[in-house]
């Protein structure tokens, strides 16, 4: 179970004060862990990998604090929480995940200080994002990143925003709500984050028909399975013949399980944990829970096999599973899995529209 090489490198992350050296550590760990994928249980692999990512991000946050102090900006004026959304929030980062992040800080006691505090955290978030870019994490294409002012606000601004999003849930706001649903603290003071999270679930409970609004967004990505039971492959370009595993298998499942979980008031963000909790709450029966977990393990494993490359110093992935990887057995396994996801989607639809 224990991996001495990884443990050693992990320990060194905490002591490294230099971004370039930190990047070197990441490269080493990535190179070390890549081949292990085939050797250990997939959940273990993800746990180990996400521990590394968390350590790197935490270190980047700490280094950024130090840097701001050296720049004469002082230390953080109020407690804050550095948040991860997306796969980071769900503890499902791969070797090539990008930055989906946010920042929430406590309200300053004197409201007149808000502007100054906001300025500090704006600068701080920018520094963290820059540092992480140097570590090879590309910024999120959808600009869900802490350096974007929309995602870097005080607690009351955050809760006010959530109130608005829940009250008038148009398409874009629902998308944001579902992003927030996966949020997790990676560095800073947990109480700030917990306040935000509880506010979210309070609104979730008290807002009529919100699940129905969330349904369309949840179902936006279709599974890659045709009416003849065939898989939809990419037709053109360098990925021709490959499968869009990310948006055609993994994301549909993540989305479906998320909606079930937040409807049931489950606080966990990791999809596997959500499935366990849903089973415990009786939303899923034992057999369903086991089947969904099994399928999700398959998707998690295949995700790590998707086309990845080092581009402009960033670890990136197209999320596509190349044709060469698709053996006959794998295709059958995938088809069976996707059929189960389709059943899951039906269940989610029924629950969200209250027809159950």
């Amino acid at each position: 179970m224990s991996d001495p090489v990884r443990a050693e490198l992990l320990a060194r992350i905490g002591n490294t004060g230099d971004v370039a050296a930190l990047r070197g550590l990441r490269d080493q760990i990535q190179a070390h862990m890549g081949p292990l994928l085939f050797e250990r249980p997939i959940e273990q692999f993800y746990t180990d990998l996400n521990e590394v990512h968390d350590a790197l991000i935490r270190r980047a946050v700490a280094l950024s604090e130090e840097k701001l102090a050296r720049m004469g900006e002082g230390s953080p004026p109020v407690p804050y929480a550095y948040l991860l959304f997306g796969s980071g929030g769900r503890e499902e980062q791969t070797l090539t995940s990008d930055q989906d992040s946010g920042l929430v800080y406590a309200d300053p006691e004197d409201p007149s200080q808000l502007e100054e505090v906001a300025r500090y955290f704006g600068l701080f978030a920018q520094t963290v994002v820059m540092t992480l870019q140097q570590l090879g994490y590309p910024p999120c294409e959808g600009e869900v990143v802490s350096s974007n002012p929309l995602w870097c606000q005080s607690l009351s601004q955050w809760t006010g925003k959530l109130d608005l999003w829940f009250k008038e849930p148009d398409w874009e706001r629902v998308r944001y709500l579902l992003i927030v649903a996966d949020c997790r603290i990676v560095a800073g003071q947990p109480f700030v984050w917990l306040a935000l999270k509880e506010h979210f679930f309070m609104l979730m409970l008290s807002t009529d028909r919100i699940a129905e609004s969330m349904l369309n967004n949840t179902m936006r990505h279709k599974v890659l399975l045709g009416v003849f039971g065939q898989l939809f492959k990419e037709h053109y370009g360098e990925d021709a013949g490959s499968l869009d595993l990310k948006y055609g298998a993994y994301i549909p499942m993540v989305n479906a399980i998320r909606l079930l979980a937040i409807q049931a008031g489950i606080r966990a963000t990791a999809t596997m944990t959500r499935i366990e909790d849903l089973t415990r709450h009786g939303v899923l029966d034992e057999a369903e829970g086991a089947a969904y977990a099994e399928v999700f393990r398959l998707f998690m494993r295949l995700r790590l096999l998707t086309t990845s490359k080092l581009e402009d110093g960033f670890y990136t992935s197209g999320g596509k599973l190349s044709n060469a990887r698709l053996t006959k057995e794998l295709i059958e396994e995938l088809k069976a899995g996707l059929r189960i996801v389709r059943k899951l989607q039906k269940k989610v639809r029924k629950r969200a529209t209250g027809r159950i």
Partner: protein
Amino acid sequence: MVKKLILSLGALSLLFPAMAFADDPSAGTLNMGLNSIWVLVAAVLVILMQGGFILLESGSTRMKNAGHIAGKTIFTLGLCTLVYWAVGYAFAFGTDNAENSISSVVGWGGAFFSPSVAAADGESLPSTVFFIFQLAFAAVSLSIAWGGFAERAKLSAYLVFTVLFTALIYPVISHWIWSSTGWLFTKGAQDYAGSTVVHLTGAIAAFAATVLLKPRIGRFNKDGSANEILGHNQVFGALSVLILWVGWFGFNAGSALSVGDGFFGYVAFNTQLGAAGGAVAALLISWLVNGKADITTTLNGALAGLVAITATCAFVDPWAAVVIGLVAGVLVFFSAKFFEKIKVDDPIFALSVHGAAGVWGTVANGIFATDVLAKKLNVGEGGLIDTGNWHQLWIQVESVLVCGGYTLVASFILLGIMKVVMGLRVTEEQEIIGLDLSEHGTFGYPEQMKKAQQNM
């Protein structure tokens, strides 16, 4: 009052004596007149289909070639007319050599066609109208062939091939199947309005061209995977299909060459059913197979339905017209996939729409033709389903193979010689710049393209 009237009528009859003796036209003349009106209208509709081809070819390709594509269609229509007038019509329908056995292969007589100004006694259609109608078909076949040239052929290649195609390729096939002395006609080959004569012939010339020209830059990757080169205007594409669809009523129903008992209405009716089947089947099959309903496939499906019903529209029952259209819609989808797989770059899907569906339409007569209609038209006999006899099906297959074979060999030889002597393809630089600029010196979309160039 009465006096005045009689007086003035008397004066008028002195001035215009014919008025007094004017005869009602004979039934034959009336019949000829009605035929002429319909067939000339049909010919105009078929000529208008060139507008469809302009929109289809330019809409399916990139902005930088749009002006070239539109302009060259008008130019080649003109050149095709002159060549068909000079020799094409003589090879196709000339009867001077009717006594000679060579007339089963190619006709002769009426070069530099100089028709009589009016229909002769007993003629059901003036030869002028017939000429225009046939010319319009030749021009359509030629425009189909251009699909294989799109976005990379030299303007001079268009010029030379127009002459060769209109003189040596198209008239031969049209003679075989449509001339009363043609050898396939006498065998009873059924191709009412030209699934083979017009569409397959054009498509095979396009195939030869696209093979000899090689794919457009960037169409295929080194590893063999294909890239999608999207057309610049899907609305043009849809409008082109509508224009072609409407023009097709001239194409098919006009091929009745008469008004007669109103049979041309039945032909039009089947035409509409075939087109409908093609459009519906194509959208559905792309939706089912790819998970996304593809617009381009839908447009191709409508055209494929029309191409397939072209040979069959006068020979089959309405239900069969629907089936023929539906099958064509499915066929065109898989055919396009097939050509992409074997790395043949077919920018406007001419090979699938006119080739595959043309073959299907011709062969479909051997399956679905009814004996009643074949007897009515006095061409061949009923197909497999109606008669249980394979005879007609075999003739249909034979005519596809022979006509396709001749066109394939002739096109490869002629284009091959052109390739050696003058070259077919523009330079890489010209292709990237676009043919608008390289061949004509000005863009079809000046504002957009200048802006794009500045950004390059």
